[in-house]
Structures are given as structure tokens and as C-alpha cells.
């Protein structure tokens, strides 16, 4: 843009100078020609034999005026004799005539009857000689010249704009790439990298950026893997725990009361612990779905199965929801976790809706709770988020991972999840799964 402006300014200046020089030169040339012509003509008039009445010969004046569009006028003793185009002498500027009257040759460009005219006034011995040469031709020439210059400036400006745009895009592309890559990374795409740069100034920047991105990605992976590794290592002792507790539980009735209570506590928390480890493993697992695990399936089937053991929950199928490609086990987890989450935190689900949506299929789980405040609706999908249930987890038996896992599975299907108010005042979790997951 600035490139175009500079280009416009330069060509404009050049054009203006050209215009000034050319027009001055042409006008001067024309004036000079007209003046010397007038001087010659004036001498002819001066020296011409006069008729007895002292009037100028009409023939001479006609001859002088003839051929061109020149108007010739002679004043003697206050009387004008004209030839050529009739003119109104009074329209001529007074200074011009006054100057000629005082014995000085004068010339001036004036407008007469809408036509630019060069007026040359020359003193005669006993009068005034006036020659008016129209400048129409010169005017046309100058007009053409000015038109050419204006168009030239315009074209050059446009060219400058185009060239500037092209050059700046080219020059700025690496920066645009950098900005895009940084934005992608900020949006969570840790695979974003910059292409290698030829530019000596930018190459180190790209290298540094890519190295930083790599470090970041490695660190994030390591963190995710750490959770997985911890859970992995916990599974052996957990297997021992779970099975030892199962043996104890089976003999619960043979135990004295305090031991029985201890076993009950142990049993409940070992199960929660086990679930947490399983879910942590699931959540730290690669989010990508193996395409071989995708299966076109009827969401209603999966929901109906999950609801088979929950007769109080209404299954509300609207229209004919489309079949979508899903990893059935993940979809099953999604539905199960949503129902369990409603049971643990919101008095249970009351209705599960399945309908088609603009992207594919829409699943709604309405609960009997008090709803979730708008400001907590994103937070509840975070791992171990306490959200609206702060301080109540110990009663719920939840792991704090259920909804995070749901969100992860939905994302893995390129679906969307959010929370609304249900018409009955509870919360409504809405999951949308697309037709196409690739």
C-alpha cells in the first residue's frame, strides 16, 4: 500500500514537472510565433499605403487575417477596423490596451467567447495593432498531454499497488507463515511447524520456532505419558488389592464389626481407585481413533442398551437419526459416562434424546439436578474439575474424570459437546457426532 503511494507520488511529481515544462515550452513557442507574426503584420499595416480617408485597406487586413482563424484589428483615431472573426474589443483587458497605447508591445492570453486566445497588442505610429490568435489547437494538445499524464500516473499507481502487494506478500509470507503457525499452536495443534526458510534473516527464526514447538510437543507428550505410565505401574499392585479385597469381602460376615466396616471402606475405595486408574489410562491414550475401529452404527441402539438397566430414564428418539461412523466402544463409554455422571452429581438422568442434527446425530442427556451455571459449563469437562460439585465428591463415588473422558472421546470423533439448560431446569449435556469423522 505504501509502496503504491510512493509510486503514485513519484509519478505524479514527474507528470507535474513534465506538464509544466511541456506546457510552458509550447505556450512560449506559440506566443513567440504569434508575437513575431504580429510584429511582421503590424509593420505591414504600418507601411501599407492608405486610402485617402485614412482608413486601412480592408484587403490587407483580410489578407492578414485570412487563412487562419486569426483576427486582426487596427485602431486608428479611436476607431477599430477588424477582420477575421468578429470580436468585441471591449472584452479585452484594459491593461493590455493601455500597455500598447503607451507604446509597449504587450501580449496576454484571454478567453474570448469561450475560446482561449492569445492577444498581441502592438503600438502603431498613430494607433494600435491587435492580433488575436486562437489557442484552440494548443489547448487541445495540452489537454491531450495532460490526459496522457493523468492516465499514466493512474496506471503507474495501480501498477505500483499491484507490484507492492505482490512484493510485500512475497516479502511477508514467511512472517504470515510464522503467525499462522503460532496461532495453530496456540489453538492446541502441536504439530504446527514452519517450512525451512531461504532468507538468511528468517532461517534462524524458523529453526528456533520449530525447535521450541518440538520441545513443547515433547513436554506435553511426556506429561500425558507420565499419567499413563503412573497408571500403568499402579495396575499390578491394584490387581493384588482388588482381588485381596474381593476375598475379604466374601468373608465379610465372618468378621467382627470394626473389621467389617474397614473392609467395606476398603472395598468401595479400591473400586474407585481401580476405576480412576482405568480412566487415567484411557485418557492418556492416543486420542486418534484407529480407522479400523470405526463402524457405521445406530446411536439409538447404543443408547437403548445403556438405558436397559435404567427403566426410569425416558428414551426420546425424534425423527430418524442417521447412522454415523463411530468407535462403538468409545461411544458406549460416552453414553455410559454421561448417565453415570448424572447419577453421581445430579440425581440421575431423566431423559436421553437422540435426533438428527445439521452435522450428523445429536444426543442429549437431561438430568434431574439444579443445572450448571454458565461460567462452569466449560470447566466441568476438565480433568478432576470439581465444578459445581466442589466438596461433594466423596459422596458421589465419581473419579473426576468421567466428563473429561467423554469430551475426549467426542473430540476424537470430531464431534462437539456442550451443556445447556434442560427445559425441566436440570442440565442438558449435548453431544453432536458428525457424519464423517475423517
Amino acid at each position, binding site marked *: 500500500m505504501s509502496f503504491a503511494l510512493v509510486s503514485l507520488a513519484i509519478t505524479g511529481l514527474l507528470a507535474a514537472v513534465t506538464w509544466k515544462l511541456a506546457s510552458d515550452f509550447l505556450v512560449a513557442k506559440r506566443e513567440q510565433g504569434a508575437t513575431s507574426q504580429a510584429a511582421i503584420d503590424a509593420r505591414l499595416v504600418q507601411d501599407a499605403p492608405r486610402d485617402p480617408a485614412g482608413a486601412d485597406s480592408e484587403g490587407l487586413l483580410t489578407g492578414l487575417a485570412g487563412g487562419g482563424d486569426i483576427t486582426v484589428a487596427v485602431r486608428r483615431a479611436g476607431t477599430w477596423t477588424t477582420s477575421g472573426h468578429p470580436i468585441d474589443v471591449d472584452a479585452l483587458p484594459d491593461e493590455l490596451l493601455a500597455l500598447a497605447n503607451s507604446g509597449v508591445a504587450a501580449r496576454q492570453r484571454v478567453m474570448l467567447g469561450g475560446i482561449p486566445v492569445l492577444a498581441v497588442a502592438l503600438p502603431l505610429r498613430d494607433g494600435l495593432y491587435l492580433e488575436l490568435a486562437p489557442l484552440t489547437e494548443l489547448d487541445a494538445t495540452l489537454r491531450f498531454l495532460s490526459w496522457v499524464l493523468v492516465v499514466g500516473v493512474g496506471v503507474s499507481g495501480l501498477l505500483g499497488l499491484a507490484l507492492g502487494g505482490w512484493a510485500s506478500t512475497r516479502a511477508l509470507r514467511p512472517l504470515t507463515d510464522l503467525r499462522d503457525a503460532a496461532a495453530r499452536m496456540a489453538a492446541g495443534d502441536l504439530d504446527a511447524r514452519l517450512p525451512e526458510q531461504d532468507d538468511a534473516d528468517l532461517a534462524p527464526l524458523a529453526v528456533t520456532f520449530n525447535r521450541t514447538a518440538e520441545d513443547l510437543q515433547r513436554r506435553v507428550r511426556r506429561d500425558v505419558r507420565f499419567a499413563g505410565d503412573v497408571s*500403568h505401574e499402579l495396575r*499390578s499392585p491394584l490387581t*493384588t488389592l482388588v*482381588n485381596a479385597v474381593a476375598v475379604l469381602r*466374601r468373608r465379610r460376615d465372618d468378621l467382627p464389626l470394626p473389621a467389617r466396616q474397614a473392609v467395606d471402606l476398603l472395598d468401595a475405595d479400591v473400586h474407585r481407585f481401580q476405576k480412576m*486408574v482405568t480412566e487415567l489410562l484411557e485418557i492418556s491414550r492416543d486420542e486418534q481413533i484407529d480407522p479400523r475401529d470405526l*463402524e457405521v452404527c445406530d446411536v439409538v441402539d447404543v443408547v437403548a442398551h445403556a438405558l436397559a438397566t435404567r427403566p426410569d430414564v425416558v428414551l426420546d428418539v425424534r425423527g430418524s437419526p442417521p447412522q454415523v461412523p463411530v468407535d*462403538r466402544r468409545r461411544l*458406549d463409554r460416552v453414553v455410559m459416562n454421561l448417565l453415570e455422571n448424572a447419577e453421581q452429581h445430579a440425581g440421575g438422568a431423566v431423559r436421553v434424546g437422540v435426533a438428527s442434527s445439521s452435522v450428523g446425530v445429536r444426543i442429549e442427556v437431561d438430568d434431574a439436578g439444579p443445572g450448571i451455571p454458565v461460567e462452569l459449563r466449560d470447566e466441568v469437562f476438565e480433568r478432576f474439575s470439581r465444578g459445581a460439585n466442589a466438596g461433594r465428591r466423596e459422596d458421589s463415588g465419581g473419579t473426576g474424570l468421567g466428563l473429561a473422558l467423554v469430551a475426549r472421546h467426542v473430540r476424537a470423533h470430531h464431534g462437539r459437546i456442550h451443556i445447556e439448560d434442560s427445559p425441566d431446569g436440570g442440565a442438558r449435556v449435548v453431544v453432536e457426532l458428525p457424519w464423517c469423522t475423517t
Partner: protein
Amino acid sequence: MSTMTPPLQPDSVVATPRDGLPDARDRILLVDDDGRIRQALSLALDDEGFAVWAVASGEQALAALGRENTDVVLLDLMLPGMDGLAVCRRLRAQGDLPIIIITARSDSSEVIAGLEAGADDYVTKPIVAGELAARIRALLRRSRPTTDGGELWVGDIELRPDQGLVRCHRGGSDPTGIHLTRTEFRLLVELATAEGKVVTREDLLRRVWGYDYLGDTRLLDVHVRRLRVKIEPDPDAPTLVLTVRGAGYRAVGRADATG
């Protein structure tokens, strides 16, 4: 990972006959290098009604199997020394003793590798004895001869469920016997009984493996692959057990006797 058990000395925590009678319970060999898991699982599976004896390595397992009667092997794939997959392959080469593998992660390629090495089913740690017992019972059910009479046909393959017999009538010569594992056999019987109709994956997983819902379809797919290798003229272009995309599997009906 340390093992506190001296080699070649199976933990015999609970494998003792009760009431002076010979133990009629199903015998399970547990192969795991973690002594605590061996003990806890042995106790819990004993509660579930199985007689368990446990060893710490693949070498011990192979040696012990030569001596003792076993109905099911529970095999951890992560073993010191001889690796679990190798043990699995060796056992499969020796016969169709039911094998359940114990894997570290359900999403790993380990599951597929174990199934392809011949395992009938798998469980993932942390193992819960109750769930494991259900898997074992389903597996033992398939191991017993069924009482279904009559014969079934899939193309030129003849099945006799009452005798556990599979014969191939191909090429006009005398029928040749085909050896299928119990799981492969049960799978083929389920497909043949449908008489050419599609059987969904869920149904197969339920009827053969006892999963009440959404078993691992990899389990089924690997077994179908193994089955095809044994019965199809060209396993890469199956003509007997066909995949019906998005639905399940289908076995063709009886072929002309002239085949």
C-alpha cells in the same frame, strides 16, 4: 520387577482337594512373574470356584503342563526369560488347551499379537477375579462337547458338533479332518447354524465369548482370520466365511457334493 518365588516351585496356595475327594473343580494354571498378583489372584479365583496353581515363568509353565492336568491357562505376556507370546505359540502348537492372555494395555498391539499367537481371549490389568471368572467359564463352556446332534455344513466343510469333528470334502478324495481350536469350532458352528444368514458381531461375541455387550471386535476378527486360514481354499479371498461390512459375518450354505 522382582520375583520372590524360587524357580520351579509353583505356589500351591489353594490347590488342595477338599473333603478328601479328588478336586473336581476346573484347574487353572496362572503364569505371572509378580508373586503378589499370583497369590491374590489364586485366592480370589479359588473363591470363584477354580483350582489355581501358579508359576512365575514360561519355562516353568511348559514344564508343569507336561505333568499336570490343566483346563485353562492364564498367561501374562510380559514374562522374564521366555516371552509370553512364545509360550502361547508353543502351547497352541501342542494342542487346543484354552489360553487367556493377560495384557498390559487393551489398546496395544500386544492384544492382536497374543490373539494371533493362538490365545482364545484376553484380559487387561487390573484384573478383577469376578470378571476373569466369567471369561474362564465362557471359555470352558466352549471347550465341552455340545449336545447338538446332526451335522452342519459350510460349503464343503462338514461339522459334527456332537463329536467335535470337522471334515473337509474337497477335491473328490476322501474327506480330510481339520483341526480347529474350541473357540474356532464354536465360531464356525454359530455361523453354520445361521444357515447363510448374517450373524452380527455382537451376537458372535456374546454366543462364543460370553460378552454380554460390545466385546472387542478385534477378538472376533482375529479368530475369523485364523479360521479362514484353516478352512478356506484361499484365505485372502474367502468364499466360505464372508465379511458383511457394517453388519457381521456370514457362512455360505452346503456346497454341491461334487464341490
